[in-house]
């Protein structure tokens, strides 16, 4: 059965170009870049090159890029590091729709004496910037707000937000894991101090990420024990993956246009097709300011896990914000923060496309989904006939 993969906000296929770029670093150049001998030392230039490739994608200086093991580490490092550097028990601002890699860190720091403000969102998943302005305090050390939401794809106005935060004198961190490669990001234009990105959302294997740290930003390291990454992140470099991330960033720059034209129109066709063919469905999140690859659709009166398992029968991979899929008992925190009614939150399905998505993928979903929805609704006690 053909795998129709529409869950790219969860992880992406490794690009063949990325894999090819990585292979020599398993077989041939496996030395330690910190070594004095040529065999090891020669590897360093490939790390430098990867750092330049990552920096170029977001228009940063290579010295501002620190390689980490994943997006979650980058987020942890940013928030912990900035809070530690600030000293004391400062105030932190974040939002209620962040990824757990941000929310859990803030909640942990709250137990250590920091005060945390979580900004709410409206029914379309948008922030109220006046609420942010009011929340800022003289002791606010860091503001951590995602650039694009993983579940709905809704994009926050990070340009404007960064300006507000910088004017208040706080450090601005953004979890940019979902937006990198889908929208142009330029840290010369957007005054963020810290920016987290992840490789495996960008067609590298899992296990590599990076944190952009603007020059002059005070941040303490999370991992101690070595001089690597300018002393900001100890640990012998994961050379093949770093090289892979460099290559992936280079490729991503070439595909941003594709994401915003071809991939976007595939997404739009999928979304429109579902809205036209299934009654009682709704799109979650603002459709205007949204990632080009993501659509989050709620099917009223039926439950997400059941929909996913039926899609799975046809080789279609998507994900759900329903309670049952996560092992938790409540629907996704993003759906709840948006006030999506329970009738819809339990039946929310996210389709997320990538450069490898095709017209055939969309056709397959549109072919099967009306029957799946009908079938489950026939089982549901909430559908009035």
């Amino acid at each position, binding site marked *: 059965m053909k795998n129709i993969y529409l869950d790219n906000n969860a992880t992406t296929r490794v690009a063949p170009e990325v894999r090819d770029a990585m292979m020599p670093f398993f077989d041939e150049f496996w030395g330690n870049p910190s070594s004095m001998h040529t065999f090891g030392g020669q590897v360093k230039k490939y790390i430098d090159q990867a750092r330049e490739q990552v920096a170029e994608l977001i228009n940063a200086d290579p010295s501002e890029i620190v390689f980490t093991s994943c997006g979650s580490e980058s987020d942890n490092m940013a928030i912990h590091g900035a809070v530690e550097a600030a000293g004391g028990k400062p105030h932190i601002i974040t939002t*209620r729709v962040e990824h757990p890699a941000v929310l859990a860190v803030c909640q942990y720091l709250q137990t250590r004496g920091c005060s945390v403000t979580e900004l709410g969102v409206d029914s379309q998943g948008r922030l109220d910037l006046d609420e942010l302005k009011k929340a800022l305090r003289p002791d606010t050390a860091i503001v951590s707000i995602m650039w694009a939401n993983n579940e709905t794809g809704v994009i926050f106005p990070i340009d404007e937000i960064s300006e507000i935060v910088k004017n208040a004198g706080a450090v601005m961190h953004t979890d940019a894991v979902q937006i990198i490669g889908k929208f142009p990001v330029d840290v010369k234009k957007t005054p963020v101090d810290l920016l987290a990105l992840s490789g495996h959302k960008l067609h590298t294997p899992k296990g590599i990420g990076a944190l952009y740290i603007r020059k002059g930003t005070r941040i303490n390291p999370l991992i101690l024990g070595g001089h690597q990454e300018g002393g900001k992140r100890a640990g012998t470099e994961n050379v093949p993956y770093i090289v892979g991330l460099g290559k992936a960033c280079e490729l991503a720059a070439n595909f941003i246009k594709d994401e915003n034209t071809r991939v976007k129109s595939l997404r739009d066709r999928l979304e429109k097709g579902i809205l036209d063919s299934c009654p009682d469905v709704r799109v979650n999140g603002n459709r205007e300011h949204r990632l080009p690859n993501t659509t989050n659709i709620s099917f009223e*009166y039926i439950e997400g896990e059941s929909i996913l398992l039926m899609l799975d029968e046809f080789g279609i991979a998507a994900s759900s914000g*329903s309670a049952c899929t996560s092992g938790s*008992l*409540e629907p996704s925190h993003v759906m*709840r923060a948006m006030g999506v009614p329970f*009738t819809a939150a339990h039946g929310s399905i996210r389709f997320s496309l990538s450069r490898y998505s095709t017209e055939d993928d969309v056709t397959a979903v549109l072919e099967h989904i009306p029957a799946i929805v009908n079938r489950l609704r026939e089982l*549901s*006690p*909430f559908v009035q006939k």
Partner: protein
Amino acid sequence: MWDYTDKVKDHFKNPRNVGLIPDADGVGEVGSLACGDALKLTFKLDKTGRIAEVKFQTFGCASAIASSSALTEIVKGMTLDEAAKVTNQDIAEFLGGLPEQKMHCSVMGREALEAAIDNYRTGKKVKHELAGRVVCTCFGVTETEIERVIRDNKLTTVEQVTNYTKAGGGCGGCKGEIEKIIARVRGTAVQPPPPAPAKKLLTNLQKIKLIEETIEKNIQPMLRQDGGSLDLIDVQANRVLVSFRGTCAQCRMAEVTMKDVVQAQLREFVSDDLIVEEVKP
């Protein structure tokens, strides 16, 4: 991905006895859209008093649908006395087992069956009734229900109780209480609670400040999980006036329980004689 048995998958993909019997002898409903699963069960008896026909409608995940389907297969042909003895374990066993975290689906089946039998015998209350004191306010689970599930399934941990009833799976505020219920039902010694610090006599200002702090630190985080929040309107002697906002205000449990939760917290941390009253903003 859940590790479902082939039998669960089969009953999910090919559910037996789907639908509603229009002139049913017994109708039972349990769960709600808010809780994420719901089951409506109808049956019809033959002349000898055996279940001749039984049908279900379920909103829920694969294991909820499979559990409902299994239930109908189990009880078909039974007398009501026999059916009343069916436990959630029977449903889970029929399916070759359910993942631990999904055991609540089998419990839902048993509850719907009980409600339907009740409906036939008494001619009233189609809805599964909340009998006893509500322990978990997030999912509306009562003490009676928790005790029953602990006994039927020989449960020993809070996590198991959550898997079987959902209780404790929302804000988690009732976990301590579930622990006490387990200890009581299992007949094990209840851990003596640490001696409560004697509550000081508070001045009015101190009291209001402490109420504010307790709301901020203990209560708001619980409510926020459900997208709600609470405003302190006024404190008049021992009466604390509050109003709920967001989803709390519309929650089906609001009148009964939200107030109780807030009151319990304030009594624990501030003063034993406080009475919480809800005012509409």
